[in-house]
Each structure stands twice: as structure tokens, then as C-alpha cells.
């Protein structure tokens, strides 16, 4: 199957993406189509059915790297791919390559439990997570790719008075930030989640919960694939199995990267490598306030629909949602020690499952099918680091830790703008790494008390 390539005329499109009433973004879009992408539609589905679905186009090319690009992005996770997509689409910068040491979406993006929410406490977080959540609302259409965004509603249940007060505070903060959330009662929770244990003798009493009606989940792989296909279509080269082994600099400026496929030049390089950020910044010669920890998740055997919202229980470190396949997708806290192994110990998920069985007694008879781990990049205040670095032309986007899947569209959007203009986008600006030096933390360590 060959990939057709041609050039279409530039077309400027004014598009308004409005997720809900809280955020309306006017995005000026310049399409520079380098390749004709087969669009998915009911007609293309029918047409391809005639040839037994054997003639679908490849989603993206697998090109050899060119000697030089305008921008090199290191890491083809969701954040790197979204950054490339918006660089091409919003800023007309299409001479871009993304390098990944493995396969695209094979890092945390392909390992996460896909919870999307924006009920954060601080204004800075509210801005970026809600931008992201609202972009998710229209993303399937934007990318012509079904990312299965399912804003099914999300409840942070509270099992202690302290948690009730903390989430009440979140509810007030969210209201001020224009994010739709509210506190709900145990009776309301029981109505939404009949399998939850709210009895008097419950091991973990449900006292209430913070409810975000437009929180939910999406298909993680599809988000990576959709952005990859979109970026490729706009001319971005995605080069897999090509690890960056050195950051080339001249007089304090980045000039390119070293790879097993040779040196690739660029005046702008962006590090978007999550748990491996330290390896890259070590190559560049500066330290990052980041530690890499293992975070695990697990799924049950598939069962009939039993829970149609996302439930997170912070005090006991556990959360659950049900996938379209019927599996319960379960996660909890990070393993509490540095880890690069992409696997973890039994201790942390045993802890999670033990608690969830108390909250949802019906789960006790389920078999768990698979568990896995990813390496998450933790910062001191549990907020990301987005922006410029001590090396000119070198940008970094990391520190999303246990919760960056929900941030992929928003982070890519503001980071692309940051790279294109060589200064932080206003929404990204507070997340610079100098905040740690200046004591200007964006403290979200109580955001959910669980990894998510």
C-alpha cells in the first residue's frame, strides 16, 4: 500500500471550538496539507467494506529523518504528538519531526487509565485543564478520528470529614473559575452508582462527593493515533525506534540532536519525554526538579455494564471506570520509590483493590486480568513544567506525573504556541520551572490524593 503524496493550496480557516459555556477559543487555523488524508466517514467505511477493509490507507508514513528541521520534538507520546499537530496547524510550522525511542504512544499515553477532568484547585491549573477538557469535547471531529471521548461524569467520593472540606473548597474554586462541578450527597451518589456501598457499617463511609458532569474518559491510543495521523497529514515526520542520545549545542544554543540514525539539526528542540525527562536534561546539562516513579493500573475481566460514571476515592487510593469492552479499569497511587522499570510491586495495587472491594462489594468475585506500569515524572507541587530552559532554543514539557492524559490537547496547544513564538503562552507561563526557585508553587498535591 503506497502513500499518495501531493500538495494542496493553503487554506485559512477560522474556527471556533467551544466545549461548553466556560471556554470559547477562537483558533485561527492555517491548513498546509502535504499529503491527502483519506477521511473517515460512513461513505469511506462502506467503500472499504467492498474490498474487505484491506485497502485502508496507512495512518502515517514512516519516513527517514531529513538532515535538518525547524523543530525537533523528542517523545511521541500524546503531548509531543499534540504539540506537533498544533505547531503545523495553528502556526504553519510543518518542517517538524518527532523522534521516539520506541513506538508512538508506547509510553504513559498508552498505559494510562484515561480519566479526564478539570476540577483542580488552583486558577493556573483550572485554566490549562479546562482548556484541555474543552478541546477534548470537539477532538474527534477536529481530528476526523474517533477518540471515544465519553464525558460520562466523574465523582470524587469523600470518606472523611477532612476530604469533604477539601472538596467543598474545590467546588468553590471551580465555581469561581467557571468550571461546572458541585458537591453531591450520598443519596445522589447511590442513585448514580447503585453498586456503591453507602451503608452505615461501610468500612469507608461515603459522606458525599465532588461531581463533575462533563468529566469522563477517552480512548488513550486513539488520542495518540489521531494526533499522529493529523500531524503526519500536515507534513510532520514521525520517526519511531530512534532514541535521542545527545543534545547538540553551540554557545548556549541548541543546534540539533544525536541519534543512532545520525545527527539531526534544528534551531528549536522540545523535550516531551515524561518519566525519561531527566535523561534528556542530563544530556543538555541542567537539572530538573523531577523524580521518576512507577504508576500501575489493572483491568478486570469484561462484564456487563455495571458502572457508568468514573468514581475516584482519594482517601483509599483507588479509582474505577468501565471500558466499552466491559473491563473495569482500576488505578491507584504511585509506587513510592524511584523506578524506571515500567513495572511495579504488588503492594500498591493490592492496597487499591483491597479498598475498592470495600467500596464496591460486588467486585470481590471478579478476576483481574492484566496489570502494567508506566514511569511518571513527579514534580514537587504535582503540577507540570512547561516552557523555556537554560539552553536557548530548547523547550521542555514534562512533570505531568500521574495526571497528564487529560491535559494532552491543552498542553499541546499552549506548548506549540510557546515553541513557535519563543516565549511562554499565557496559560503555560505560570508553569515555568523558575517557580520552584521563587517559591511560587502551583500546589495540586491534594488534587485528588490519588494518581489519575
Amino acid at each position, binding site marked *: 500500500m503506497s502513500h499518495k503524496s501531493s500538495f494542496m493550496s493553503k487554506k485559512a480557516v477560522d474556527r471556533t471550538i467551544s466545549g461548553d459555556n466556560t471556554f470559547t477559543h477562537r483558533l485561527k487555523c492555517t491548513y498546509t496539507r502535504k499529503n491527502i488524508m483519506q477521511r473517515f466517514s460512513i461513505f469511506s467505511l462502506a467503500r472499504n467494506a467492498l474490498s474487505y477493509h484491506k485497502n485502508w490507507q496507512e495512518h502515517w508514513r514512516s519516513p527517514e529523518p531529513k538532515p535538518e528541521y525547524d523543530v525537533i520534538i523528542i517523545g511521541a507520546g500524546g503531548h509531543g504528538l499534540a504539540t506537533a499537530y498544533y505547531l503545523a496547524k495553528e502556526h504553519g510550522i510543518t518542517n517538524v519531526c518527532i523522534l521516539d525511542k520506541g513506538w508512538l504512544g508506547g509510553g504513559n499515553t498508552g498505559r494510562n487509565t484515561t480519566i479526564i477532568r478539570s476540577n483542580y484547585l488552583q486558577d493556573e491549573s483550572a485554566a490549562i485543564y479546562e482548556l484541555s477538557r474543552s478541546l477534548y469535547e470537539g477532538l474527534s471531529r477536529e481530528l476526523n478520528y474517533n477518540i471515544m471521548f465519553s464525558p460520562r461524569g466523574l465523582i470524587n467520593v469523600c470518606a472523611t470529614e477532612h476530604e469533604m472540606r477539601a472538596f467543598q473548597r474545590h467546588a468553590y474554586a471551580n465555581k469561581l473559575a467557571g468550571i461546572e462541578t458541585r458537591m453531591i450527597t450520598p443519596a445522589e451518589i447511590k442513585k448514580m452508582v447503585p453498586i456503591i456501598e453507602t451503608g452505615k457499617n461501610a468500612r469507608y463511609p461515603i459522606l458525599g462527593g465532588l461531581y463533575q458532569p462533563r468529566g469522563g474518559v477517552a480512548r488513550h491510543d486513539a488520542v495518540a493515533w489521531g494526533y499522529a495521523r493529523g500531524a503526519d497529514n500536515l507534513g510532520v515526520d514521525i520517526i519511531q525506534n530512534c532514541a535521542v542520545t545527545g543534545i547538540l549545542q553551540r554557545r548556549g544554543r541548541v543546534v540539533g540532536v544525536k541519534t543512532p540514525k545520525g545527527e539531526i539539526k534544528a534551531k528549536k528542540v522540545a523535550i516531551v519525554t515524561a518519566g525519561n525527562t531527566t535523561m534528556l536534561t542530563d544530556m543538555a546539562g541542567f537539572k530538573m526538579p523531577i523524580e521518576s516513579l512507577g504508576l500501575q493500573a489493572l483491568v478486570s475481566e469484561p462484564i456487563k455494564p455495571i458502572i457508568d460514571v468514573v468514581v475516584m476515592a482519594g482517601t483509599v487510593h483507588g479509582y474505577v471506570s468501565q471500558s466499552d469492552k466491559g473491563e473495569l479499569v482500576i488505578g491507584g497511587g504511585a509506587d513510592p520509590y524511584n523506578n524506571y522499570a515500567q513495572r511495579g*510491586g504488588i503492594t500498591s495495587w493490592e492496597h487499591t483493590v483491597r479498598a475498592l472491594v470495600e467500596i464496591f462489594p460486588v467486585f470481590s468475585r471478579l478476576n483481574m486480568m492484566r496489570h502494567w506500569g508506566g514511569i511518571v515524572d513527579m514534580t514537587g507541587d504535582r503540577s507540570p513544567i512547561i516552557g523555556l530552559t537554560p539552553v536557548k532554543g530548547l523547550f521542555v514539557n514534562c512533570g505531568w506525573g500521574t495526571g497528564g492524559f487529560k491535559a494532552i490537547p491543552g498542553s499541546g496547544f499552549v506548548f506549540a504556541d510557546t515553541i513557535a513564538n519563543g516565549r511562554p503562552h499565557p496559560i503555560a507561563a505560570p508553569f515555568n520551572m523558575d517557580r520552584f526557585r521563587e517559591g511560587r508553587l502551583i500546589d495540586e498535591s491534594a488534587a485528588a490524593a490519588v494518581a489519575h
Partner: protein
Amino acid sequence: MLLITCPVCGAVGDESEFHCGGEAHVKRPASSKPGNVSDESQYEYLYVRNNPRGPHREMWQCVRGCGKWFNAMRDTLSLQFLAFYKIGDPIPPLPGKKSATKTRTPIQGRRK
């Protein structure tokens, strides 16, 4: 699951019986005049840790045993412990050059 031996009381157990306290041998930039502590060294002390992909020295507490803190050297990629040693013991050198991270010069001699 990590298997740990407490070098103080000799207890052997899995990670659920111990508590990890993060990187060992982090030195607080103390001064009789706090104003002399630079923002940079305070920042490094509070937020910057070695994050090597390979051998790493860290603090652990024997929670279910003697309750004491001790140090360990562990490979963060293989998850294998390479050494357990008491607070104040000589600091074992990092083996080989497996780690991509340069470690901070360890504090020599005994520490409290």
C-alpha cells in the same frame, strides 16, 4: 515486590513492611546566617534530586521492625538492591558507569 533486609535489626520483609524516604545523603545548606544560603542551593535542597536510571542511594525505614532509618543502594532499572547500610556507615560507591546521571558528591565520613 522489593525484598528488603534491615541492616540495623536484621529483619527481612517485603516493601509493604518498610517505608521509602527518598534520596539519601541530601545535605541541607545550613548556615548560622540563613540569609547566606543562596536561593539556588535552597532550591536544590528542596526540589532537585538525583533521578538516575540505574544505581541510586536512598533512605528506608524499618516500619514494622525496629523503626530505624537506614540507607540502601538500589538499581532503579532492575529494581535490585545492591547494598543495605546503616546511617553513618561509609557510603558505598555507585558501581560502574551504568547511570546516566552524575551524582552529587557524597558527603564523606560519618553523618548523624
